[in-house]
């Protein structure tokens, strides 16, 4: 089970994420981002969706894959009010990713909100693997 903590950035929110596999890192990063967006999460999974990320040729690797993955989930939230709760990775990295994601529905009347994440930035972006420990550092524009 991965862990995450926030770190200081003057106007924005930094996240330091750790996981014991790439899948764990991707899942923990998703949980970390949505802990910024929402103070209450939906209780149950209501919709299953396949989320696929394929890096465009001009993009280089894992860092970008992480950004694309998180942006994809934020897109589901913003356009369909879906909140990712459960993750099953079928294919992962370094240039493509396929996950079966269980989403709950966001209800503005019931769920307390935190910050609106405008984007996951490339600023100070880092993904590292040391032995079986995966770490990432991302800054969210809020």
């Amino acid at each position, binding site marked *: 089970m991965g862990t995450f903590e926030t770190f200081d950035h003057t106007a924005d929110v930094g996240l330091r994420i750790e996981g014991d596999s790439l899948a764990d890192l991707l899942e923990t990063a998703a949980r970390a981002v949505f802990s910024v967006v929402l103070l209450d999460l939906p209780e149950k999974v209501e919709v299953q969706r396949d989320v696929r990320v394929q890096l465009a040729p001009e993009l280089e690797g894992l860092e970008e894959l992480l950004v694309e993955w998180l942006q994809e989930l934020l897109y589901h939230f*913003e356009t369909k009010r879906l909140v990712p709760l459960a993750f099953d990775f079928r294919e992962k990295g370094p240039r493509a990713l396929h996950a079966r994601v269980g989403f709950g529905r966001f209800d503005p009347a019931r769920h*307390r*909100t935190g910050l609106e994440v405008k984007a996951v930035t490339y600023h100070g972006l880092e993904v590292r693997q040391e032995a079986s420990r995966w770490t990432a550092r991302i800054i969210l*524009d809020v």
Partner: protein
Amino acid sequence: MANPRAYHGPLEPAGECRWRIPKSYKRGMRVDGIIFADDRLIEQIRGDNAAEQVANVACLPGIQKASFAMPDIHWGYGFPIGGVAATDPAEGGVVSPGGVGYDINCGVRLIRSDLLLQQVAPRAKELVAQIFRDVPCGVGVGGSITFSPQELRRIMTDGSRYIVERGHGWPEDVPHTEASGAVAGADPDAVSKRALQRGSDQVGTLGAGNHFLEVQVVNEIYDAKAAAALGLGLSSVAFMIHCGSRGFGHQICDDYLKVMRGAARKYGFDLPDQQLCCAPVESDEGRRYLGAMRAAANYAWANRQLIMDLLRKAVAKVFASTPQDLGMGLVYDVAHNIAKIEDHKINGRIRSLCVHRKGATRAFPAGHPEVPEDYRDIGQPVLIPGDMGRYSFLLVGSESAMDETFGSVCHGAGRLMSRHQAREAVSGDEVRADLARKGIVALAKSWKGLAEEHSGAYKDVAQVVDVVERAGLARKVCRLRPLGVIKG
């Protein structure tokens, strides 16, 4: 504030409220960095990485004169927030999405009224509650109108003019909006399907974060002639809207950061930060980005126009009147996250430059053809919101800003504390109690978000504005204090 990423490089005094980072400071700098600040603010500015970012921006191909930073500068991603950089397309000058930011055409709109403090103060609670009900705000909240793809195209090309045409505004709102509510050259075909999906139901929504709608009262006048020309008198009540292009603009920025990362490699740019990625203005990538960015800028003007329409109706409801009878005219609407092609004088010669304003406000002087006719004697209104517990300022642009900073000044107070530090300092309840003590009615969707926006988390905007005035970049007209605050 203690920050491990404090700046330790050179900052040489360079005249009244000016500090220079010489281009010899780091490899790749093409021009100096110039930061506008007084002795106190420059110490705060040294506290984070923003000055380093000013130096990084000085590395952009085709940059002219200097990489400028306003006194509200703080650490951004790539560009500092509060930065101004102009490049010359004729010299291979670039355009960089990072120099505009994710929230394309984030900006401020000020609406006047004939209402006076004594009429509004006793009904402030009711008024703020009505506006909070009628203006959609907060995370994941859509607008009351969903626009079809065809209608979105009109928004992209015609901005606030289209919203007025649909009956949500007055014809005289248009000339009181920067670029008359729509910059030319928007290219809807350069906008992704995903941006359209994110933008379809967000026109007329405030969003969250540092965006707000405030009920304000003019409580100090510095230039009576200019204030009168703008329709503002002592004790008159006004309304300020601060927001941008919502998910539509965020998506366009993200889409083009990817394009530009490829482009920066293709054109062989050696950049100190990936987030500064860019392409020549005169390249396919540059033209497409500018076309999409202009579509988002126009979307933002449409957004603020529709919010103003909802606001006018809400205020009229409370006072059992009409917006016209309440004199709710638009004073001005100005962008502070944008890139524009503008004519500026460099070494005595007029050149067409790509001016990036990232957390900086256009401040054109009296007589400039882009200043609305009825304001041409006083100069372009510059709206500088402060933090929600203190005050905001209205200034007018000057000739020296035109000569020195490509007609640009600051955009706000600038953050002092990180969000985490702000939350550690006070809770949402304490912020609410503090505002109530000051007689300010606040309503927010997220009290956590509100706590992070409390007064102490920001620099004192009065200091920021004083530096701008001492440096000769703009002139103060009046100060407005909040009576009511609405946040997402």
